[in-house]
């Protein structure tokens, strides 16, 4: 299981053989410090397959994590393995990795097609093969019709998609996207999210970072939460939420007579708090969501209340992040 931690080699894809049994990504106790600032401290993580969202506020260490994974920076402590190989010492695994860096800087003077085909040649493709490959990936992200325009004239969404296309060259098994949705308009977001979902469906390992929470929810339910350089949580979104048993769930019930409803609801054992924030809305706090939901329909029907909506506003990433970081989910 443990990969060879001392594997070194040249950047020659034909000589390099990936460690088949190793996870795609393996970080063991990885830390990165800049002077007194801890960008990452003691992160341990292993991932293979599927779409994973890396969540965190600004400065949580998401980009640092990616740069360490891509061998751009050297971890201060700990072991990093990409397909079982140390990426700082050996660039060979990049043949199977696509990386979308953050930031807007690109080679504005090139056309999208030039940009992708030129860099595809660094994967060892011939000139013609690189051109064909550029057509293929640009078609995948839907930019084939503007492939021969300069990147400098592209909108932000198009630039992001160009970067994603660049990362998809040679069909990598692992795709890392650093804030791919940042600064894009809703249409571009939807397009990019569709692209990412499609990649996940095709069985690639995709890692997406974001602090835009709702979009990550729409892409994946497998998340890793980073905060102040530490790994806070990892796993399925709902499972994480349910594990936080001691934290009350909040349920908003929109109805015409919240006070009437409250009288009935208070009898449920798992309910421990009720508040009225709106003339037509009742907010219930519970420690056991399942129990509450099993009682609620009966109460509504028995009491003959007119209920417009039942909302579970806490069950999203914002509140989880809030709870985990001690903010109370407000």
């Amino acid at each position, binding site marked *: 299981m443990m990969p060879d931690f001392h594997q070194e080699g040249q950047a020659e894809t034909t000589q390099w053989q990936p460690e088949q049994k190793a996870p795609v990504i393996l970080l063991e106790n990885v830390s990165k410090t800049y002077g007194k600032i801890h960008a990452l401290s003691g992160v341990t993580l292993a991932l293979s397959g599927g779409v994973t969202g890396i969540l965190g506020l600004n400065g949580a260490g998401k980009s640092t994590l990616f740069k360490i994974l891509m061998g751009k920076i050297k971890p201060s402590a700990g072991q990093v393995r990409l397909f079982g190989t140390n990426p700082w010492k050996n660039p060979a695994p990049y043949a199977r990795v696509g990386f979308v*860096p953050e930031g807007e800087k690109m080679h504005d003077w090139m056309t999208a097609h030039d940009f992708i085909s030129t860099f595809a040649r660094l994967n060892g493709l011939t000139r013609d093969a690189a051109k064909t490959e550029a057509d293929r990936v640009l078609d995948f992200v839907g930019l084939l019709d503007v492939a021969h325009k300069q990147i400098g004239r592209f909108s932000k969404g198009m630039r992001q998609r160009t970067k994603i296309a660049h990362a998809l060259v040679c069909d990598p098994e692992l795709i890392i996207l650093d804030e791919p949705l940042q600064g894009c308009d809703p249409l571009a977001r939807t397009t990019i999210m569709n692209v990412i979902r499609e990649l996940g469906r095709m069985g690639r390992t995709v890692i997406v970072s974001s602090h835009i929470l709702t979009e990550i929810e729409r892409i994946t339910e497998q998340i890793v939460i980073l905060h102040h350089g530490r790994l806070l949580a990892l796993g399925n979104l709902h499972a994480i939420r349910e594990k936080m048993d001691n934290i009350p769930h909040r349920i908003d019930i929109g109805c015409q007579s919240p006070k009437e409803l409250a009288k009935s609801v208070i009898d449920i054992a798992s309910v421990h708090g009720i508040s009225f924030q709106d003339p037509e809305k009742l907010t219930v706090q519970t420690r056991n969501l399942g129990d509450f939901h099993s009682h609620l329909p009966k109460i509504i029907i028995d009491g003959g209340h007119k209920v417009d909506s039942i909302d579970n506003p806490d069950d999203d990433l914002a509140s989880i992040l809030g709870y985990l970081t001690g903010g109370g989910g407000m």
Partner: protein
Amino acid sequence: MADKTNTIFRALDRKASAITEFTMRQYRTKISTWVVLITGLVIISLLMMFYIDAMQRDFESVDNDGDSIDSDGDSYPDGQERLYGTNPFSELSNPGFFQPPIPPDDPSVWVDEDDFDWNESPTGTRSVSVGYDDDGDCRTEDRTSSQKDTNDNGIECDIELSLSLTGEFMYDADNLVDEDPDDEAYAKEALHRASILGIGKLGFVFIISIFIPLFMATGLIRDEMNSGTMHYMLTKPIARTEVFFYRVIGYLGIVWPYLIILTLISAVVTGFAGPGDSLFRFAEFGIWLAILFAAMMATLVYGMLFCFLGVMWRYGIVLAIPFAAWELGMALLSMGVPDAPILRFSVIGWALIIVDSASLIVWPDMALLIYSGLSVEGTDALGFESEELIGSEPLQYFYANPGLGNISPFLSMIIATVVLLIQAIALLFVGGAIFKGKEIE
């Protein structure tokens, strides 16, 4: 033949051509590249214009031995009187009293009456006999053999040249041999050579070869590291040393053809406009090739160095600029003291050895030419004072012996080339290693 080495080589080759091509296209889109290259072209054209102007100029002929003067006022110049054996200081003694009377010459005939016809250099301690008495005032029949051979070397009307143990020229001429060389011919030849050396050494090997790398190579990798676009290249399966090397190759792909074009222009201009009977001075292509080669080697080493400094430190320019000033000092020093040991600690000192060695090969009579121009200065046997010939001083300033001591010019050229190549390779490895250890934000 699809064996393993072949495919590896071809894969590397693809990467190399991709990055090289990318770098060249990137330069092409930067305005600063064009500004810098055009400025270089303007500088060289300016120098060429000054050169053409100098070649078209009429140089005033100077009477270096004073024999065009009519000392006694009988309208016969002293030289003509001396030729016919009459007394130049007596009005009553002149060729006009001969039967038939000889008409007086125009004084201008006695200016530049001797050509410059030294064609051999002494080597070692062997002395050589050079010179031809063009105007015949030494060979005239009424002079005795001892009068014709005042330097006592057994050859009448010649100049005996030898080298002293310290390498200085020793010059011993028979009276009235080559006493008044052709100033214009000398000045043009000397200025022509001095121009090629000066423009080649200071213009090409210093100004062009140091400022173009400063502008173009310092940011070759650092700019992309700062802007973050280096990520695109480094997420590919390619070693960073390779990136460093191919980027420098791409830079050379712009700079070397540019140098070739500039040198070709200069060679054609000096070839056609230079003095001489032939239409084109083919012989001097050798020196231009050496200048081109030296400039190419210098741009290679400087390019590697400045790129490395840029990679090493965000403020690499702080090291690069004082280094450029240091190289200017070394360039000026090498003109005067070509064998100073401190020059071995510079790049330009080695590059100039290539030019100096080539000038020794192309113009073996160079030291002699300088000497003959300078030796005119002084007071001659008849008490006439004269200045050194025009062109000899610049030639002396810009010409220098290859600074590696008494070895053959070919050998010193090879040594200098090898040293420069070693510098370049060392910088490549150091730069690659530093780049490998850099964290890229």
